[in-house]
């Protein structure tokens, strides 16, 4: 068991630099999720940890060992691939035991460990089947089983759920979480799905264009995004971002209309500053339908353009300052398109970003 350290890690393909000197400290037994859009360098980073990609500069340490030049087999990590990568010509038992066999473990040990992993993942009935005879979820479990039998220092997951249908994905997500509880090991998990990131991670690493944008617990990243990218990427539906300018203690939106500058942010902005005002749909609700205990709010009248019923809440599409935004109506009633409602906006949860840099005006 060990933590993983990335120290100014760079990846270049020829002249093209795709990962730009990232630093990351992953604690022992920590579940860290690398999340970001396609091409942000998250999978490359994971593959560099696994040893499947060389690093162009910097250091990677697993535990105390610098592993820069070690081949994958000497790093003692396990990996679950997006396409499962089960060996098609071997049955489940041989797939699970393959790594141990290669390591030259005695047959008895292999049998015990395979049985243990099969027990944990509920695979005992499937041992004699080949991958082609398994369902998507079962294949996924075999892939995880193959990772845990070797008792590695770390598990690496490369978008393991993206090939599953929505229902199975939720189910496997909880299984992965439970698995981490049972076999406490360091986990590095790559996904582009921010819901997976939020639900699974001890800490989230948000990446974009080969840079780490923010590292923090799911709550930190959700509640205190450092820039507009993180704000819009984490959270579903995404945060509403409306451009404006600071004028006399208010944010005057470019498209018309104002809201007060949130009290806690007043000292961080100056008059005339171009900003982007951010508020999550959860913090913008019709009066009487959510946002009760907010200390600092303001009210605005908005017209319903579209309402999506989600059951316990209704997502309302509307416009503010000429820009489409979303609000949420909790404890919903039927809505008509064109209906104007007074919304309460929770200012103490609102955000301000500098328009020029995109960074939060209030660094944490």
């Amino acid at each position: 068991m060990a933590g993983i350290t990335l120290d100014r890690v760079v990846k270049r393909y020829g002249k093209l630099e795709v990962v730009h000197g990232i630093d990351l400290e992953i604690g022992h037994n920590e579940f860290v999720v690398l999340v970001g859009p396609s091409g942000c360098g998250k999978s490359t980073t994971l593959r560099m940890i696994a040893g499947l990609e060389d690093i162009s500069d910097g250091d990677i340490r697993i535990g105390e060992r610098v592993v820069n030049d070690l081949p994958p087999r000497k790093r003692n990590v396990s990996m679950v691939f997006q396409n499962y990568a089960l060996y098609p010509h071997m049955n489940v038992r041989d797939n699970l035991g393959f790594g141990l066999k290669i390591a030259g473990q005695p047959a008895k040990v292999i049998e015990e460990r395979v049985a243990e992993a099969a027990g944990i993942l509920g695979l005992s009935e499937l041992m004699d089947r080949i991958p082609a005879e398994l369902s998507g979820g079962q294949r996924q479990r075999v892939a995880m089983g193959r990772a845990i039998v070797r008792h590695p220092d770390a598990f690496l997951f490369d978008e393991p759920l993206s090939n599953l249908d929505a229902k199975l994905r939720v189910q496997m997500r909880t299984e992965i979480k439970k698995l981490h509880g049972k076999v406490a090991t360091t986990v590095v998990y790559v996904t582009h799905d921010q819901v997976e990131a939020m639900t699974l991670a001890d800490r989230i690493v948000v990446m974009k264009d080969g840079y780490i944008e923010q590292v923090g617990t799911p709550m930190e990243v959700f509640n205190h995004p450092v820039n507009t990218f993180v704000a819009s990427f984490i959270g579903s539906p995404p945060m509403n971002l409306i451009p404006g300018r600071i004028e006399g203690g208010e944010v005057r939106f470019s498209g018309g209309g104002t809201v007060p500058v949130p009290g806690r942010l007043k000292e961080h902005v100056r008059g005339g500053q171009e900003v982007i005002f951010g508020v999550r749909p959860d913090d913008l609700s019709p009066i009487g339908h959510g946002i009760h205990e907010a200390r600092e709010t303001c009210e605005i009248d908005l017209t319903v353009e579209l309402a999506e019923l989600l059951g316990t809440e209704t997502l309302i599409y509307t416009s503010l300052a000429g820009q489409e935004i979303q609000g949420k109506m909790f404890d919903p009633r039927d809505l008509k398109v064109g209906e104007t409602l007074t919304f309460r906006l929770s200012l103490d949860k609102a955000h301000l970003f500098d328009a020029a840099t995109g960074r939060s005006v209030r660094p944490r």
Partner: protein
Amino acid sequence: MTRALKKRLKATALWLTTFVLMIVMCVPGLWVVLSAFRPNREILAKPPVWVPQDLTLRNFTKIFGIGEETVAIPVLSYFWNSLVIATTSTVIALIIGMAGGYAFARFRFRFKNAWFLGLMLFRTVPGIALSLPVFMLWSRLGIIDTQMGLIIVYVSLNVPFTVWLIDGFFRQIPMSLSEAAQVDGCTRWQAFWKIEFPLAKSGIAAAGVFAFLTSWNEFALASQLTRSTDSKTLPVGLMDFTSQFTIDWAGMCAMAVIIIVPALILTFLVQKHLIAGLTFGGVKG
């Protein structure tokens, strides 16, 4: 006409067409096999005797020098030459084909596409067009009428094909399988032998069969580059049955059967591997 009847008519027409096509393809072969067991007079009879009246093994015993009538043809030497040349050239072509196919499927290197195209273009040159330059080269090197001379020619004929076919099979195997094996503790070499090779086996077997048959059946170049029992192969040996004024059709057909049978046996033995499809299921399609 009802729909069921239409469907049945269509099926029958399809079946008939297939049957006719199969006949067209099979009859010459069958005729050769049949003629191998008939005396010359029945083969040459006019009008032709369609249904054999007099089946005999004499054509074979004659070739092998058994009994009173014999034909002075060293079939066993030819057979041995064919076997050595076809097997050796196939094994070499497969080794090079596996290495080359793997490299083309897995690695990035300079001028990769140009190399590949070059290999394929090599196949467009008809072998016989090379016979004169090859003959001159070989005679300088002193390897005319040697097994080695033919082996080299057949290897170079077969390599582009084996590389191309095996490359295709390796391409079908996802990279992640080899990577998973490496993370699981394999060296790249082990990952190849334990994971990728078994999955590409059917492709390699297919390439092997084709390479073997090409070498086994090749006539044009072999007839130029061989002279004596040191290197003459079975197809070249067929010419021994022709003389200035006569052709021993019966003997020739018997010899043709001797050539066909090993090829048939080989194809039969590896037919299981020729059916691909093992790679499906291990990874999400």
